[in-house]
């Protein structure tokens, strides 16, 4: 495994195969902390109609940042991404479909005798 020297002081210097420097990772962590703070802010401040979308967007952005940088997927071979993203996408799509079916597509009138449901 190759070496990243601390003396690269550029912060977010992205080396092709080697990810970020330590300082770069610290900056990423700070970014994540800020995003988390904004998320928590929704508890204290009324975002109104923006609350749920903001939380979801922040969640996705944090998720993406940890995967790409901390888990190195951005710099690694695509095969790893395919393996993981397939599972992730399947998970989201299948369970979104299940939720839709269970919550939004139920027959509001119920299954009376003689009615197909």
């Amino acid at each position, binding site marked *: 495994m190759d*070496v990243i020297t601390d003396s690269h002081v550029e912060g977010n210097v992205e080396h092709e195969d080697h990810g970020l420097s330590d300082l770069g990772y610290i900056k990423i962590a700070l970014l994540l902390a800020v995003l988390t703070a904004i998320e928590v802010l929704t508890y204290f401040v009324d975002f109104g109609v923006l609350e749920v979308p903001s939380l979801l967007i922040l969640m996705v952005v944090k998720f993406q940042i940890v995967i790409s940088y901390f888990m190195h997927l951005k710099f690694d071979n695509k095969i790893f991404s395919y393996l993981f993203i397939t599972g992730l996408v399947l998970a989201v799509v299948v*369970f979104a479909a299940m939720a839709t079916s269970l919550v939004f597509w139920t027959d509001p009138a119920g299954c009376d005798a003689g009615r197909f449901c």
Partner: protein
Amino acid sequence: MKARRRLPLDNATEVNTSQLAYGPTEWDDYDVPPLTTGLSNEKMTMWAFLGSDCLLFASLISTYLLLRNRVGPDTDGSTAAELFDIPFTSVSSFVLLMSSLTMVLAVTSIGRGEIERCKMWLLTTATLGAVFIAGQVYEFTGFYREGLGFTTNISSSAFFTLTGFHGVHVSLGIVMLVTLWSLISRGNIGAERAETVEIIGLYWHFVDIVWIVIFAVVYLIP
């Protein structure tokens, strides 16, 4: 109709018996044939496993989302959501997030051969994870004292199952980190096997991103 060709099975022309179909090649000079993609088997295993784990947590999260507000004639007690202490859980979440940072630093340090520093970061990560777990335990015992146990109602069963699964994942991660620390101390893992640390790191980060989802979807979204 086109005439069909017979395959000349019986009229073998040059049957060459001295040559093997697959004889020695320069690939046999390797003790070990190079891996097809050049990627590590172990790392690929961990990514495949994490892909699978996405479905595990998706099922649990969906189950929770479906059941969290459901009531029936026997329902008693509050839902889990009514008892959340968001400030407290925010601190816990922050702790876990930072543990991901310390984990990355452990990986980069062993990549540079800085064994002692790696050990330090590993222990820090494990400690932060333990703090997170302690926070969970505190939170859950608090709920229990307020009348929300595992069996209280359907919402509580779902909540504790989801967070419990996550907590067990974290706990196993902590044990792995401590074991890793110990093996590095004993010299079984050096800089040349730094990938081991990276692979454990992947697991740890995954546990963190699951919590990112749980924190948003279970705690924050009303």
